[in-house]
């Protein structure tokens, strides 16, 4: 019995199949927990799946590179998924035109604030250059953020972690913050959630109202593009 199990493990641990399956099932389980919590932003499916997978990799003494040989098939889909963001953007093009000027102004201000404030605060608090580069694009959706970080020489996988944490923090903070400030405009609230906290903020905005959700979705796509343009430009000046 023992030798049979170990020979199966030897086969599995070297094939991409095991870690591809582990990634998919970690997500399925984490996603159902997220649903069962009433889509509580604190019960994030990404964080749960990542923690479970890391525990499994550490317990089985598997290096990340071995894991990634299986997980790369899922990772590869980030590119086509980024392109697919064009569909909701096109669908809402009508509202984009109508509120074009306020949105453009808010987008520019929000995008610059997101980049400068996070990098600035981390720099003041003594973070090193690699961390700063990986922080710059933390407010935009992961596929874009990772591509931007790669381009300016940061660590894309560190950025992925920052993006997810930003999304969770933004989703938790957004409603109480705007209520406290007395902001009622659903379009503005949704737009801000999308600029600051990408897809996780957008998902949160949809729970509050459809108008907020639609504007958050537009903001997420637009800030993805804006940040992709701004960060490499700012990086040229400061690095």
């Amino acid at each position, binding site marked *: 019995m023992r030798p049979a199990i170990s020979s199966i493990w030897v086969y599995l641990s070297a094939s991409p199949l095991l870690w591809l399956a582990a990634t998919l099932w970690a997500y399925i389980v984490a996603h159902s927990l997220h649903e069962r919590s009433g889509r509580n932003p604190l019960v994030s499916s990404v964080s749960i799946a990542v923690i479970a997978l890391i525990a499994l990799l550490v317990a089985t003494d598997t290096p990340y590179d071995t894991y990634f040989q299986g997980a790369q098939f899922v990772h590869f889909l980030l590119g086509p998924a*980024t392109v697919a963001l064009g569909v909701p953007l096109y669908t809402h093009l009508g509202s984009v035109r109508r509120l074009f000027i306020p949105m453009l102004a808010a987008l520019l201000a929000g995008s610059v604030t997101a980049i400068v*404030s996070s990098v600035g605060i981390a720099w003041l608090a003594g973070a090193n250059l690699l961390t700063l580069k990986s*922080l710059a694009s933390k407010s935009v959706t992961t596929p874009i953020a990772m591509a931007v970080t790669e381009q300016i020489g940061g660590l894309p996988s560190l950025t992925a972690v920052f993006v997810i944490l930003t999304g969770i923090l933004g989703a938790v903070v957004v409603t109480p913050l705007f209520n406290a400030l007395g902001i009622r405009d659903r379009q503005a609230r949704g737009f801000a959630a999308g600029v600051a906290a990408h897809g996780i903020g957008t998902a949160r905005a949809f729970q509050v109202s459809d108008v907020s959700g639609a504007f958050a979705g537009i903001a997420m796509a637009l800030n993805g593009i804006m940040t992709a343009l701004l960060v490499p430009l700012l990086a040229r000046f400061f690095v």
Partner: protein
Amino acid sequence: MIFAFSLFVLCQLLGEVLVRLAHVPVPGPVLGLVLLVCYLAWRKQVPEDVQRTSSGLLTHLSLLFIPAGTGVMVHIHTLKTEWLPILAALLLGTILTLIVTVFVFTAVARLTGAERVAAPGEAE
């Protein structure tokens, strides 16, 4: 599904090629996104297949972050030594961004008198 997926991959491919040809500092998939919007604008509609495949990919966008997110195990040292600047940057940066964005949006909307469409039952 196959057409839509091939369309997304083609947009991404063209995006990557154009980025390299023109030396623009934008990720290839982002240019691919713009190309897709142009294609849809040219078609003047979203084909059923494209709509369905895009929602399918975007509904489970979180799944696609997992392989990269797991990569944090490689950076555990950075997070241990720099958790304070990182946490401060993420939390304060996000709050600042929310406040600046919402104030600029409402202020400019008021200044330009952009018409607002309130959803039914939205006024509270």
